[in-house]
């Protein structure tokens, strides 16, 4: 059972460490399976979400735990906010493709993300360091791109316009 092992989502949920799991802290960090298809992030967010989807099949409370974890990230540092937006991008694409197997309050989370991006607008273009040592540069450029190709056309939310 992939998420029952050390560093898995169920362990994180049992310990109240969903935020750390999402962030890829310590043993929670996931690595891309291939040099050719990895993403530039502190943890492989696709793998993390797969563990969460798998856990939701057999465990109650996963949707709430994910929503709370996402909200916690959106209330965190600029690095946390960047990662939360990355997760929201994946969740939005999965929903659009009919591949999202659980209910997450995406619209509410996107509205929170819009506020969080505005709050950290000055820090996001710079260098963001995550607790596991990963360094992300020019995070705002990613957010701008995802806003253009995912959030605006699919979700009707403009992450870069706080008043819309």
């Amino acid at each position, binding site marked *: 059972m992939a998420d029952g092992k050390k560093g898995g989502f169920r362990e994180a949920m049992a310990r109240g460490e969903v935020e750390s799991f999402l962030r890829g802290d310590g043993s929670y960090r996931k*690595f891309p399976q*291939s*040099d*050719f298809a990895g993403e*530039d992030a502190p943890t492989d967010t696709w793998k993390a979400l797969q563990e969460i989807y798998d856990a939701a099949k057999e465990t109650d409370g996963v949707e709430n735990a994910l929503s709370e974890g996402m909200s916690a990230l959106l209330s965190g540092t600029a690095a946390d906010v960047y990662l939360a937006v990355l997760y929201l991008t994946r969740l939005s694409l*999965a929903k659009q*493709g009919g*591949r999202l197997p659980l209910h997450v309050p995406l619209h509410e989370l996107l509205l929170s993300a819009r506020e969080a991006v505005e709050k950290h607008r000055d820090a996001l273009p710079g260098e963001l360091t995550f607790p596991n040592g990963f360094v992300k540069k020019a995070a705002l450029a990613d957010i701008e791109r995802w806003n*253009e190709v995912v959030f605006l056309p699919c979700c009707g939310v403009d992450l870069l316009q706080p008043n819309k």
Partner: protein
Amino acid sequence: MAKTAKMSELPGKANRLKQWLSAAGVWFLFTVVLLLSAGNPAFAEKASAENAAGDGKALSCEWKWMGKAPLTADQIQAILAIPKGERPDPATYLDKKYMKRHLSQFCDGVSFVMGLDNYVMYVLARKSIGREDNSCFVMPKSVCDEIAKAGKGKISVYEQALGFEPGYFQGHGGLVRIDVIDVADLHIRIPSGNEAGANSWWVPGGYTSGGVPEAVSDLIPKARIIVTRLQEE
């Protein structure tokens, strides 16, 4: 997987090279070279120039499949023990002929594959493909062609051949293959392990941990890519 078996076989020359590199005296030299490369910028600069198949010049296509890198387990461990960012240029521990032959596999074009979601997130609305440190991991186009031919369009064959878990690409909404034919000026080189995309699975020598030949290119202009989407089976 015929290709995997073929790649794992060392040609006679490579076997002899491996034995040669395994000799105790050479191991001592290798250690000295590592120390020199770490502390001598001039040496590192020279090595960097040697680890290049492009630099605006035409690639040499005289060599084909080489097999896995001629490095001993001890050599691999020694390199992996060096922190990312400080690892030596491959030219300091790989034979020039091996490097030339390895890189020649990429002269007819390079390829890589990604999930559809990742394509949307990391390729659309960008002018170039790759990471912020001017690197992009690629495989020879011939390898991707062979997988495509063997799989007859089945995504699962790509997953099996490239070491992804079953269902990986389906979970991303499909598979997108990217080919680049004109690579002469992309500075195709053997990865040093210092690249932003080099993760904990990286091994030195120019092959993935699953035995697929790999190299690193500079950022690839988007206008130069050929995109093929494979639909779900």
